[in-house]
């Protein structure tokens, strides 16, 4: 699914300038603990999280995660936006809570770990 469709589904705001609507996302992972994210091994992945700190961007970098959606109305810090732009990671933000945002994407065909 294209990142633009994902953004529409969860009514997300785009936070980084490097937004490319054509980026393809095949799977997603929802977690607030970054080591749980690193136990996830899919490619072209999206991360949904309620955690706001620079380590979210670092984790995305190490995991080749293309895009991160911050949930529950949380917004990334300016320093996180800068780091993400430098590393080519797209940041989005939605008001939906983690469960609802994940559910909307799952229902529309984004799979998770082990499928």
């Amino acid at each position, binding site marked *: 699914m294209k990142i633009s469709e994902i953004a529409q589904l969860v009514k997300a705001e785009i936070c980084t300038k490097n937004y490319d609507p054509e980026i393809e996302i095949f799977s997603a992972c929802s977690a*607030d603990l*970054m*080591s749980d994210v690193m*136990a996830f091994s899919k490619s072209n992945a999206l991360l949904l999280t309620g955690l706001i*700190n620079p*380590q979210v961007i670092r*984790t995305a*970098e*190490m995991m*080749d995660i293309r895009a991160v959606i911050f949930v529950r109305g949380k917004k990334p810090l300016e320093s996180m936006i800068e780091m993400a732009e430098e590393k080519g990671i797209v940041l989005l933000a939605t008001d939906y809570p983690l469960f609802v945002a994940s559910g909307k994407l799952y229902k529309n065909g984004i799979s998770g770990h082990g499928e």
Partner: protein
Amino acid sequence: MASVVERDYIIPANDFTIAGEASSNVRKILSQLGVAPDIVKRTSIAMYEAEINAVIHGNGGQAHVEIDENKIVITISDQGPGIEDLELAMQEGYSTAPDSIREMGFGAGMGLSNMKKNSDILDIKTAVNEGTTVKITVFFK
């Protein structure tokens, strides 16, 4: 890629803003050397987990990295409290991290198992009140 690349990094204690810098740098070097993306990813995860552990558990430490044509060897050592029960610490979900660390997004109890899963050889030497040294080897082929 015949010659050996060596790098040394200082890992500052309790500094979450720059934690991961060393791993990010090594990741860049491996990509520039043309190492396969899946190997770069495995190495990055293993080193990043070890680096984060040194920050949160080890009062900071240092990393020494050696890359030759066949492999990368990463040694991360700290002079922290050491690991009391290594077998228990290797269990997925087991964590001694305080809530303050969990609020930062770590302490899931997956660090050591993620390191093991992503290394070809993982060697951990630890002694209570002396510190911990983690040696991660990843082969390129």
